[in-house]
C-alpha cells in the first residue's frame, strides 16, 4: 500500500540537493531533549516547474489517529 506522499514531497525527494537537506533536517530532529517547537526547516526544490522554496514542519499526531 502506498504511503502518504504528496506531489510536493515527491518533487522534493526527486531533487538530490533538497532531498539531502531534508534528510539532514530529519536526522537533526532525532536529538532527544533538544527539539525545537515547532521544528521547521526550509529547502530549495528545483523541480520541473522551476524553483520552489519549501518549508518542512513536523506536525503532531492526529487527535484520534489509530
Amino acid at each position, binding site marked *: *500500500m502506498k*504511503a502518504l506522499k504528496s506531489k510536493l514531497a515527491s518533487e522534493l525527494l526527486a531533487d538530490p540537493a533538497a532531498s539531502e537537506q531534508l534528510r539532514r533536517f530529519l536526522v537533526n530532529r532525532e536529538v532527544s531533549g533538544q527539539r525545537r517547537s515547532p521544528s521547521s526547516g526550509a529547502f*530549495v526544490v528545483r523541480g520541473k516547474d522551476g524553483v520552489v522554496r519549501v518549508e518542512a514542519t513536523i506536525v503532531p499526531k492526529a487527535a484520534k489517529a489509530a
Partner: protein
Amino acid sequence: MNVAFPTLILFLVLLPGFLLRNGLKRAERSSVDFSPFGQVVATAVLWAVVAHLAWMGLSYSCFSRAFEPSVLMHLLSSVPASQTKAAQAVGEQFTWIAFYFVSLFAASAILPIFARRAISTYRLDRADSRWSGIFRFHDAPWYYLLSGVDFPEEEQPDLVFISAIVEVAKEAVLYVGVLDDFYFDSDGQLDRLILQNVSRRPLAKDKASTQVEGADKERFYPIDGDYFVLRYSEAVTLNVQYVKLTAALPQDDSLPDETV
C-alpha cells in the same frame, strides 16, 4: 444426483450480502477472515436484505415485476409436491429471474468498490468524522496510521518519517527515512516498510545534550540506494512522524541552499 435444493436457493439469496460485505471491507489481512462467525453471517444477511429490497423496489418501479414470497416459500419447503409446483413457476419466468440474480450479483461486486472509494475521497471514515462509526474500516489500523487520513484536510501532512531500531550483530542500530510503501502479510501484520532517503547510526552513538547539531553528519551514515526494505519483524521499535511541507511562491536561484 441429489441436490439440497433449498440450501442452494438460500445460498443464492444470501450471496449478494456476502459479496457486498467483502467488497466494502478494507482489511489488512488476506488469508482467513477471523471475524466471529455470527458477526459475519449477521452482517451478510443484513446486507442481503438491503440488496434484495433495493433490487425488488427497482424491478417493481422500472419493470412492474413484483416479488411473490409464496413461490420462494414453496421452493424452500421440504414437501416435493410443493417444490415441484414452485419450480414450474420459476421455470416459466426463468429468464427474468436469472437476470434479477445476475444483475444483483454484479452490482454487489461492483458497487462496494465505488462506495469504498467515495468513503475515502470524502473522508467519511476519519476518526473524528461524524460518520466514522459507520464508515471507519476497523480492520485496517496500519492504513490509518501510515496514510495520514485522520488529519483534517487542511492539516494533511505531505510525508511520513519513520525511525526504527533494528538489532544488527547484537547492536541496536537506528534507521531513519521517509516512508514510501508498506506491505502486509496474509495475517494482516505489517510485513515490510519501503523507505527512501535512509540514514543509520548505532544507538550507542546517542548525542550528548551539549553536542551541537552539526555533528549529526558524522554520527549518521547515509545509505546508498533508492529504496531501503525494512522488515517489520526485525524492528524493535517503530517511531512515526508526519511532515508538513509548505511551498512558497517560486523564487530565483539566489535562495539560500542550506537548511535553516
